[in-house]
């Protein structure tokens, strides 16, 4: 079993942690006091940079480095956009933070703004997140009333406003420039980079875009220091993160574990293993955009570099466990239906390719596919990789290429038997529902 005290989720069981007084009673806003009273902004940036806090949204890009890309302060204001558009299928950890400990996010936000001389924050929250939004908004209201936000943060004369903007139901608005476009009131179509948001972001101004979880870790690193943080996790992948574990496991849920925990440990030691009588067929380690792993690969450490090294990715930390009753063709078909629906449509390869792949998969799953279809599928997937403005197409191609590569015989069985060989799968009789 993994030996590590939880950081973010330490007090998640405390009732009413979302309330300011309860959060404060657990040591909340101590780090903010430290930051504004005893650290100058540059020291805060330096600490986060030293901690090598890698972005928890999916790309794993170091947050401190991202912050340091801001050009020297000029006439234009700077903005912080908080990416709360958690949309990667299999990922539900930001939701947990927003609903359980919204003040922890706010504390991270205020520290970041103090460090970066930012006075306006936009929290771009997924439109479907009704409940998380209400929790966040009431935390913001409390923070204004308590002088944590508003014209003079912590009485220091530093003005800071936090505005919550709801999305309207587009996965692509989780991509940082798609998010900014949507925030500005346009369709969420990712921008060409460079320029990166740090230089030209929201409303033409320098902008930092950080994930909810990333910012939630900031108070802890400021409170306990980068050296403490670096002692946790694996090499170059310090700290813990929230894993969203779903699929055919006994105990799906959100678990905080150090980076570098193996996938085997996540499935069997943490999530209670597979349902009785079932065996592991595959794992998607980092949301559906990540290449699928087969059971031989589950001793891989779950961190950005180790998964990258085997051609997959840690992504958003959404671990989807697939057992032997599940049809891989149907699973991939479902994934592609998602991407075809969510492609913003601006780049030709993604606009046309995602839906083409979905239609081919639909055909194979219905027993109408041919062996040429399989070849076409993989070739089309490869043709849309690496040539688009954002990585949605790559995220759609990675599962195709890895599913077909690692589970080829399942695809050929669909073709040769002219039907899906799997009955509809679900939890075995006697297992409690996984809902809720």
């Amino acid at each position: 079993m993994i030996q590590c005290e939880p950081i973010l989720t330490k007090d998640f069981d405390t009732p009413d942690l979302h309330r300011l007084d309860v959060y404060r009673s657990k040591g909340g806003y101590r780090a903010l006091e430290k930051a504004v009273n005893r650290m100058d902004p540059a020291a805060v940036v330096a600490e986060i940079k030293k901690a090598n806090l890698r972005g928890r949204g999916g790309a794993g890009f170091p947050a401190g480095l991202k912050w340091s890309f801001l050009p020297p302060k000029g006439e234009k204001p700077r903005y912080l956009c908080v990416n709360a558009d958690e949309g990667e299928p299999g990922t539900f950890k930001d939701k947990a933070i927003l609903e359980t400990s919204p003040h922890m996010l706010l504390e991270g936000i205020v520290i970041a703004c103090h460090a970066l001389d930012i006075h306006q924050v936009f929290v771009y929250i997924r439109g479907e997140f009704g409940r998380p939004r209400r929790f966040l908004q009431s935390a913001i209201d409390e923070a204004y009333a308590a002088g944590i936000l508003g014209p003079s943060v912590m009485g220091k004369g530093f003005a800071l406003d936090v505005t919550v903007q709801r999305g309207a139901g587009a996965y692509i608005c989780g991509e940082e420039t798609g998010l900014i476009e949507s925030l500005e009131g346009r369709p969420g179509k990712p921008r060409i980079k460079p320029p990166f948001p740090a230089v030209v972001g929201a409303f033409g101004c320098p902008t930092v875009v950080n994930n909810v979880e990333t910012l939630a870790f900031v108070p802890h690193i400021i409170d306990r220091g980068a050296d403490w943080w670096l002692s946790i996790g694996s090499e170059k992948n310090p700290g813990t993160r929230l894993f969203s574990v779903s699929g055919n496991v006994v105990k799906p849920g959100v678990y905080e574990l150090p980076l570098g925990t193996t996938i085997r440990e996540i499935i069997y030691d943490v999530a209670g293993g597979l349902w009785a009588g079932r065996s592991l067929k595959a794992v998607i380690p980092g949301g559906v955009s990540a290449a699928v792993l087969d059971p031989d690969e589950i001793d891989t450490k779950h961190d950005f570099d180790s998964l990258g090294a085997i051609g997959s990715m840690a992504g958003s930390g959404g671990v989807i466990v697939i057992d032997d009753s599940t049809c891989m063709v149907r699973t991939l078909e479902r994934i592609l239906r998602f991407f075809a629906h969510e492609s913003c449509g601006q780049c030709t390869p993604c606009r046309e390719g995602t839906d083409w792949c979905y239609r081919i998969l639909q055909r194979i799953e219905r027993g109408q596919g041919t062996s040429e279809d399989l070849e076409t599928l993989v070739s089309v997937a490869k043709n849309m990789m690496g040539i688009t403005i954002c990585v949605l197409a790559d995220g759609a191609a990675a599962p195709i290429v890895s599913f077909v590569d690692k589970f080829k015989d399942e695809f050929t069985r669909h073709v040769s038997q002219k039907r899906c060989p799997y009955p509809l799968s679900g939890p075995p009789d006697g297992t409690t529902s996984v809902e809720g």
Partner: protein
Amino acid sequence: MPKITIDGQEITVEPGTTIMRAAERLGIFIPHYCYHRRLSVAGNCRMCLVEVETWPKLVTSCTTPVDKDGLVVHTSSDRVKHSQKAVLEFLLLNHPLDCPICDKAGECALQDLYFDFSRQDSRLGPEEKVRKPKNTDLGQQIVLDAERCILCTRCIRFMQEVARDPVLGLIERGNRTEITVFPDRRLDSRYSINTTDLCPVGALTSKEFRFKERVWFLDHTPSICPHCSTGCPVILDHRRRRIYRMMPGTREGEGTWLCDPGRLGYGLFNDPDRPQSPLIRGSDRSQQSPVDWDEALKQASSGLKDIMVKTGSSSVGGIFSNWCTNEEAFVFLRLFKAFGSVNVACFDPVQGLIDSGPADGILIRDDKNPNTRGVREIFASAKGRTKTLPDLIDGILSRKIRALYVVDPDLLGRTPDGKERKRLRDALKKVKLLVVQSPLTNETSRMAHVHLPGAAWSEKEGTFTNGDGLVQRIQQAFSPPGSGLTDLEIFRRVAKAMNLKEVSAKAADLFVELASTVGPFKGMRFQTKEQTLGRLKTPESGDPKSQTAPATPDLSR
């Protein structure tokens, strides 16, 4: 300044120049759809991918600035060719391939680039193609076929950035995306037809040209739009003595935009009521009837000579307008000099043959005539040997002038309604001999004793001087209808019939003479390969209205 290599050719460019622009300068064609020289960059079609040595991914050449020395770019490596084929396959996947009924066929970038860069069969299986509406009315001039659309967004960017009327946008996502006009808006801009030129495929078509003619049957003649003093370069697309459409031309290698009213203005010369031969009013003075040129010229010249003999040369008046060419103005004045009459006036109202509306600072100007400046300059050079139009009319009304030779397509129609027009009409009624030289049939021509059918601007050679003083050539696309003649040829014949010194009917010869005698034109040469011959030497003084529009529009933008 960074020095880079594209396909083995070295070029030094300003920092920030994109690979696409650098390649353009080298004459290397990188296939593209969304990129357009004079619009902002969208980078969405992914057709212009190129390989840069040591860079891991292919990059879009339209979005990638050159800011480092020594980049080595390949525009047709195997990787690039593979991606070009892939993108074309994606573009064509749901394309309806209705080329046989598509107006763009023959000048379609999807067709052309497919043949140049792909030529592979579709791998689409038994699925249906994505179907979309094929006939959506977007505005007065434009129809959208959403199935053909490749979503390059050029039309959207044009309406936003050039026409300054952002009514177009995208709705939906993925391959369900469509171009649309915003709710309660219409694509009714005076620049809307440019979107059909910009459209690389047959998604946007103009109602004017839709289903009228296959493009490969059309002949192309460069000319100048005659419908305002901006003088945009155009290409006349015509077949069998009929113009089917007017397309934007180029000036100094750079393309132009056109306004819709100007572009559609040729329609008035496709009028079946245009005179097919000279007309004269018989002895009963009631009806005009067709005659041949000898008869018409005899009638005109003997009439003029009679009056000159009876009441002197100065009893012959002439009205010449800003709708005619520099060369015609030059010859007309020479004709009157030979007549020995100074009663010749310049008719230069702002009203033209069509109304394109008020000046907008984009292309459209208030002066709706092609040659106001040129005609004024040439008249000004005939110091003291001309009259003002009101003086000329006074002369007619007081019976000092008894014959009038009018060269203008629509003298009364272009005169502001009211007192002024009434006075002019009275004058036209009063003269004993009215000769009207005009390619159109209208109130003025019907009053004529002799109607000499001149040519439309598309039926003759010559030059116009635009509001900025640019002297630009118009070229003959085809002959005037029926037995009609070019205006210069008519002048030549009139001179001959009057036993005057022979004048040339060749615009090129006349331009040489003009350039050697009329100051502001001095030094210009008539070059058949050039459309712009030069710029007038004196600053414009007279027409403050032309100042409201930018000078010759900056076409490089």
